């Protein structure tokens, strides 16, 4: 399974054609005639995929749906598909983080490559998210003193300096350092610094 496509379009013919094409390309396709129907959906955090969204929809419009999804922190990338060029709408949706904005009619190749790119991005961001989750879980296992030692090691301080600062012996600090390396699953100082950077940027 290459990923799940949530297709929201009120035109059944277009939905059928897009579903046919995407299923042929190996995606799982879930088709919705309105934005409200999509919102009834439970989104699993681990499923990769993207949303193909029409702009003009009955009641809740495409851009409205985008805002609601953002509010619900659904991270699926959104590709807009619209019947006419409306620059203000395009700009607004892209600024809100839409993956792409395409005008109907769109060729099969372009649609497929856009969907593929969106799903790849989603996959990458999910992986990164998973990695960060592991890292912060690791960091959560450190004792308060180990955390302090960890911060000073990353700042580039030697065992001696740290021992002096905490008024303890170099041996104790060495032991702390050892446990930090183990818990953070770092094999070298360089790796530990990298982990610290990743933690800080998240």
């Amino acid at each position, binding site marked *: 399974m290459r990923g799940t496509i949530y297709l929201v379009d009120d035109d059944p*013919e277009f939905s059928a054609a897009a579903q*046919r*094409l995407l299923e042929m390309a190996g995606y799982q396709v879930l088709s919705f005639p309105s934005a409200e129907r999509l919102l009834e959906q439970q989104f699993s955090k681990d499923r990769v995929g993207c949303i193909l969204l029409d702009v003009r929809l*009955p009641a809740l419009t495409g851009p409205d749906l985008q805002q609601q999804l953002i509010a619900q922190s659904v991270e699926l990338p959104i590709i807009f598909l619209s*019947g006419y060029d409306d620059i203000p709408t395009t700009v607004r949706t892209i600024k809100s983080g839409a993956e792409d904005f395409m005008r*109907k009619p*769109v060729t*099969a190749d372009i649609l497929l490559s856009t969907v593929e790119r969106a799903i790849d991005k989603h996959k990458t961001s999910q992986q990164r998210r998973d990695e960060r989750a592991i890292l912060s879980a690791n960091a959560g296992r450190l004792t308060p003193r180990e955390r302090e030692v960890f911060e000073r090691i990353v700042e580039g301080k030697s065992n001696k300096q740290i021992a002096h600062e905490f008024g303890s012996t170099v041996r104790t600090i060495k032991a702390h350092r050892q446990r930090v390396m183990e818990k953070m699953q770092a094999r070298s100082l360089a790796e530990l610094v990298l982990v610290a950077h990743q933690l800080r940027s998240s």
Partner: protein
Amino acid sequence: MPAREEEFPLIIPLMPATRAHRVAAIWVAATLLLVFAAIAPFAGIHLGRVDVFVPVLQTVLSAADLLTATLLLGQYSVQPQRGLLAIAAAYLFGGTFAFLQTLSFPGGYAPNGVLGDGYNTPAWFFVFWHTTFPLGILAYALLKDKAQSTARSTRMGIVVTIASVLIAVAALTWMVTARVNHLPSFYTGSVTLQTRFGNQINIALFLLCAGTLAILFSRRRTILDMWVMVTLVAWMPNFLVAAVASSVRFSIGWYATRGFALVASCMLLSVLLTEMMVLYSRLASALILQRRERANQLMSIDAATSAIAHEIRSPLGSITLNAGVALNHLAAEPPDLEEMDTVLKDIEQASLRVDATITSVHGLFRNSSDHSGMRIEDVARQVLRLMQHDLQAGQISVVTGFADHAHAIAGDRTQLQQVILNIVKNAIEAMMSTPADQRKLTVSTRVQERWVVLNIRDTGAGILQRANIFDAFYTTKPDGMGLGLAICRTIVDRHGGTLALVATDDHGTEFEVKLPIACE
């Protein structure tokens, strides 16, 4: 229709007198006659001699007359009607003779007058002034209904008129200054005693004035006729006082008639100026409305094209994607012919849908001056079809109830479409605050005597202040311009119909468009 606008005269002298004008003219004339009647018994009483009275009054009078002449010539240059030249000449004569008389008047600009003998010369100027003016008016009365001259250029007409007036004035002036001794005398011994000749002249002038008035009365039609008649009425006491009461300079009658003359002079001038302002404001508001109408048309064309784009591109999108699917099936080994059959049939269906869309919107771009056999039901259907997406999006149910036997109406299809589009758009917006299951738009037609009546009813929030919704710039929408309904009403008016708000409350609003049935 525009034809009515074209027929509306563009210059004041050709405007038909309205009831308001007639009433005002009668009031002014009646007031003047009353004042005259009140003064008449005392006309002969001598008051003090105020030398500055004549120069001041007559200079103003002369300026007013010359300004009136200028305005009339200006009107002539817009619409060359020979009658206008005659009346302009009358005012030119009046203005110049009034000023010449002032110059010759003893005790005016000089103790013995600047011109002539200071005795009979001013009297002669008075006679010329009061002869040429009614003669000019008489010429106007006789010429005014003739077709407008096209042979000569308007500029030539104006130049010739002014030149003739000046030559005549110069010749007569020479006669009454250099040759005044050879002419009959008006006064015997003193300026307070009039000769028999003076009396006769005054009666003759009165009759000339009265005759002119009678002729003009029988041919009265326009605003100009009306006020020139009032001017003549204001002049009559002049001669009556002079002839009957044998009134002479510096008596109550004399002062009063001078005052009358000033009123008469300024009357037409003020009417012309007022009417010009009225005409100008009409013109300005017409222009503003036209500009707005154009902007509105552009806006609705924009809305229409985006709706059409959506209607067409959606099936085009499915065709394109299905074509991609078909190509993939073709490349498969072996080709999946059954699937391809389904896909190609879908492509066929979508193409037919595009065609249907184009057919249905074709009417939008049909020649809009196509006046024959249009039915308001068709126009309404087209608008509903165009707004279909918005109506669906707003979850509004549409109920139509059209008259069984549709009647043709005459008019501009695009403009009527705009009217209905505007009302439907307002209805959709009004219903957004209503619960979705209660949103209902009812469009119905019926025939009522000679009218086709279209009713559009919504179940929206209603309009709070119904009094001024048709005024330009009135709006209840935060981002609206408030032009929609004002323009709609103008359009319906032009079609000889009416647009009215028949009901509005918490449960909805109903508009009614009434248009005359076209003659078969």
